[in-house]
């Protein structure tokens, strides 16, 4: 058995787990607000319903493992998981979809591995991928954004959540779907002929991404995580998009700006891959981790079968993270790197 040897000096953060989690929750607020503005109250309801369920499941799991639920429930970590998952789920999803996702995330993604601090995969993304593979239809029906379709009210949203069959909303293909299915239209023509495309990316989506970017930058400013992983991911995603842009032909994979402001890019860059447990540990490792997520994100988005690729890219890199850590161990303070260091 070999342990990772992260050597001194160990920096100490003045924040405890609960404060970090609170900051993350707070930073999602602008993104949630913009999502709610463009797609209606569905996301908010998802978050509330998912949060209650997640807290209950966490309490049960802690009770089963003879841990003190009081202490661990108060660190907000399960609320962060459920909130991140519910942001990623389509608004107006039926209750059983959310429940399955939360169950997979909290139990399969987290507690089976030993709870907070031990989960090798990002729990929210585990929940998302389980849902995406099991219920592709429900997972890919997104409400049309404000201006393109009617936004449901609160009552309608509640019925959509609890009486799934009765709800008949206006769903539309997302810009990423449209781009992938585009055959024969030049990119400029596609943008001007399809109402879902906005100024830079998709109507609504561009602002959602900008809001998450703002939240993420605030978190970096607060020192919750370092800039390495997000920046590396955004750079490689931009580079890949620039290479595949093809000057906007019908085969084009979309411009870098389009990819930065589409789907889950900013949400993923600042809220998912910065998870300190399932990501890489050292700064060099984070650079590699983020860069590879960016490459995979682009490849699966453009050529894969799924509506967005973030969850898969993250899970694949979570799987690779311990290996990345193994080879990016920081050098002991005061020593020069030697070959004998790797056993």
């Amino acid at each position, binding site marked *: 058995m070999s342990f990772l040897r992260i050597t001194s000096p160990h920096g100490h953060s003045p924040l405890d787990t609960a404060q970090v989690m609170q900051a993350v929750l707070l930073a999602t607020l602008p993104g949630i607000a913009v999502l709610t503005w463009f797609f209606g109250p569905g996301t908010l309801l998802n978050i509330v319903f998912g949060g209650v369920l997640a807290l209950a499941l966490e309490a049960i799991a802690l009770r089963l493992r003879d841990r003190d639920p009081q202490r661990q429930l108060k660190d907000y970590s399960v609320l962060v998981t459920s909130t991140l998952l519910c942001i990623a789920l389509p608004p107006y999803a039926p209750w059983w979809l959310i429940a399955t996702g939360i169950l997979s995330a909290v139990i399969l*993604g987290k507690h*089976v*591995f030993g709870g907070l601090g031990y989960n*090798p995969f990002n729990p929210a993304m585990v929940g998302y991928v389980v849902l995406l593979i099991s219920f592709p239809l429900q997972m890919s029906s997104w409400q049309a954004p404000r201006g393109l379709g009617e936004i449901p009210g609160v009552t309608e949203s509640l019925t959509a959540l609890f009486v799934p069959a009765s709800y008949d909303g206006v769903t539309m293909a997302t810009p990423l779907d449209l781009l992938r299915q585009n055959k024969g239209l030049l990119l400029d023509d596609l943008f001007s002929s399809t109402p879902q495309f906005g100024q830079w990316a998709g109507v609504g989506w561009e602002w959602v991404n900008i809001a998450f970017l703002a939240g993420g930058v605030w978190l970096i400013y607060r020192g919750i995580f370092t800039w390495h992983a997000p920046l590396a991911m955004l750079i490689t995603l931009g580079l890949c998009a620039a290479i595949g842009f093809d000057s906007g032909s019908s085969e084009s994979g979309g411009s870098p700006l389009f990819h930065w402001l589409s789907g889950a890019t900013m949400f993923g860059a600042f809220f998912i891959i910065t998870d300190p447990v399932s990501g890489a540990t050292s700064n060099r490792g984070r650079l590699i981790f983020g860069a590879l997520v960016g490459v995979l994100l682009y490849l*699966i988005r453009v050529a894969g*079968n799924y509506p967005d690729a973030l969850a898969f890219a993250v899970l694949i890199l979570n799987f690779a993270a311990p*290996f990345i850590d193994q080879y990016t161990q920081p050098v002991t303070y005061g020593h020069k790197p030697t070959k004998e260091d790797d056993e």
Partner: protein
Amino acid sequence: MLADYALLLAGTVLVNNFVLVQFLGLCPFMGVSNKLETAMGMSAATTFVLTLASVCSYLTYTWLLVPLDLTYLRTISFILVIAVVVQFTEMVVRKSSPLLHRVLGVYLPLITTNCAVLGVALLNINQAHNFTQSLLYGFGAAVGFSLVLVLFAAMRERLTVADVPEPFQGAAIGMITAGLASLAFMGFAGLV
């Protein structure tokens, strides 16, 4: 032509990964993944055996079984040919290069009788691969196997220090991790 070969290789390594997508070679995947070091030795041995087996079985099939009209004997003849070739190589390596034998030797007999090895040989025939394609398919399968085995070993080393609940300790948590990794690899579907 070259692009086709590159796609075949990439497709075999990632999209149709032998372990996580086609579920072949699960026993060494679970059995030899407790330590990163042994996993690497196993990977090297597997790469050697799979590539060799793929080529040998292709040659056996094309130059022996098809001319003699004995294609229905392919399973048993592949087993024989692969076992003989690998065992022979192992003996040669043991006598000629003790160092290489220490690195590869112990894993060679282990992997020879594995389903991934026979799987590669039979899949080559099923998919009507030519010589170069068979070679690349065997090599790609091995690289894919090695990739996930090494990543999985690194992850299991970390899991040994995790506070896993008692009922899930050991093989159970390994299976769950492998399952989640398999879910992740489904994301590659459609890529090639």
